[in-house]
């Protein structure tokens, strides 16, 4: 697959009230990568995602998605988003799994058009990818946290996005299912060629699975291949986090990574 820049941020800054949360971020995200976005609490990771998605507007700088300025960007079906809030939705909401997944097609279908049988097929297909097809007609609130998370990934996948953004998707998912979850992401990245950008706290696990790592604290401190990030010294990390962090020992299980550089 040919590499191209799909997300480009230039000198992006953003402040909440008077405090700068994101400062002078320059970032270039290439297609085909699996990026882990890490950083301490309050380092602006989630805000950076919101900026990319146009959910908040930057105070400075410019953002391009797939070569278009964010303001003119229309092709939202190219981007799937699984938010941190996805597993804190109103669990009493009276909707079936398939109804929720179909909402992922809203941008693809466009205004004044209706859901039809083809869309139902697409939704079932997306549920098959996340192995949740048998729950299609269950009530969304009756599923476990891990199952709901898979449904939200199916919702993000149903519009065939080329970029999938996940904001701390493993929060509230038990440890046993986290491994399965990463396997699923690896499959999406390698088999379907979907570019992944995932915000996480779990530095140890993400460097095992991602091809690239972005480490930020208001601004980007590191952006490069995961292998290089592992070499990133403990001292540098401590400086970045402002306190001592336990470097997780990486138990290298070999897996193939799609290096495109």
């Amino acid at each position, binding site marked *: 697959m040919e590499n191209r820049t799909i997300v480009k941020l230039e000198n992006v800054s953003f402040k909440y009230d008077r405090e700068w949360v994101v400062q002078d971020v320059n970032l270039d995200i290439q297609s085909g990568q699996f990026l882990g976005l890490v950083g301490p609490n309050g380092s602006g990771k989630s805000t950076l995602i919101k900026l990319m998605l*146009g959910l908040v507007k930057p105070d400075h700088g410019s953002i391009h998605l797939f070569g278009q300025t964010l303001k003119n960007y229309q092709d939202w079906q190219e981007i799937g*988003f699984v938010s941190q809030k*996805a597993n804190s*939705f109103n669990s009493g909401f009276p909707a079936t799994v398939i109804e929720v997944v179909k909402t992922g097609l809203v941008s693809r279908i466009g205004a004044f058009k*209706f859901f039809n049988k083809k869309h139902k097929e697409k939704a079932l297909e997306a549920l098959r990818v996340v192995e949740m097809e048998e729950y299609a007609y269950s009530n969304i609130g009756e599923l476990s946290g891990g199952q709901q998370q898979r449904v939200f990934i199916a919702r993000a996948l149903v519009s065939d996005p080329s970029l999938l953004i996940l904001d701390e998707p493993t929060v509230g998912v038990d440890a046993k299912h986290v491994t399965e979850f990463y396997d699923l992401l690896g499959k999406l990245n390698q088999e379907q060629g979907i570019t992944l950008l995932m915000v996480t706290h779990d530095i140890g696990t993400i460097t095992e699975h991602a091809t690239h790592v972005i480490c930020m604290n208001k601004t980007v401190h590191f952006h490069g291949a995961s292998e290089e990030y592992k070499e990133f010294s403990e001292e540098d990390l401590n400086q970045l986090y402002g306190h001592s962090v336990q470097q997780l020992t990486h138990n290298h299980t070999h897996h193939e990574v799609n290096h495109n550089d």
Partner: protein
Amino acid sequence: MIESFLQYEFLQNAAITGILIGIVAPLLGVFIVVRRLSLIADALSHITLTGIAASLLIEKRVTTVNEWNPIYMGMAFSVFGAILIERLRKVYKHYEELAIPIILSGGIGVGVILISLADGFNTDLFSYLFGSVTAVSRDSMWTVLVITSIVILIVILFYKELFVLSFDEEHASVSGVNGRWIHLLFIVMVALVIASSMQVVGILLVSALMTLPVASAIRIAKSFKQTIGLSIAFGETSVLIGLISSYHLSVPPGGTIVVSAILILIMSILYKRVRAQQWIKGEA
């Protein structure tokens, strides 16, 4: 009953208006309930009263205006109130629900003053507060028919946008849905439906027709579409039972409609409970 229905125009007006709002009030009610905006219906119904009062006062003081249908002024105030609530929600970002008591008490406060000035504490007012089977004019019935048709059409056209916005606002935004416009459109529809329902159910009980059938439906329904279907079925049943018993018992229909809706609610809660017990027994 059927004989008098064919004979009296006022009964036809009330019945047809009742059937129409029995569809459209629970239809919008589903979106109101799942978005946790139930109290907005109350605030808007109270400001509708202010509009009615203003209309009564103008009719009384300005002699050139006679036989002015107060429903139009009620609608105008309700829509104005809806827009004001949206404004206030932005002013009090962290206390969005404050907008509701502000509009609700403001509406009643101004309403009481206007009613007093119009010497309006009489049977007319009573029928606006609790509904009436005799007060619906042919003119009002046509207005409600037009509003009902428009609302149903808009809900069908914007179904997926309304649904995605109700389930997950952030996702709606990432889907390119213009949440602000859809929400404004929605709340204006709510305002119009409240003003339409007022004559049959009464201002004080309008919100019940939007929320009680939905409260029953979400106990039973699995999907969102089912929730809509059941809500309308329950709403319509309450309206019909309520209107017929209101006519026979000579009590305001607002009371009988709400009591019917509450009986349905109790039945749906019991039904769910029995089902759950059966399920536990089946497992054991």
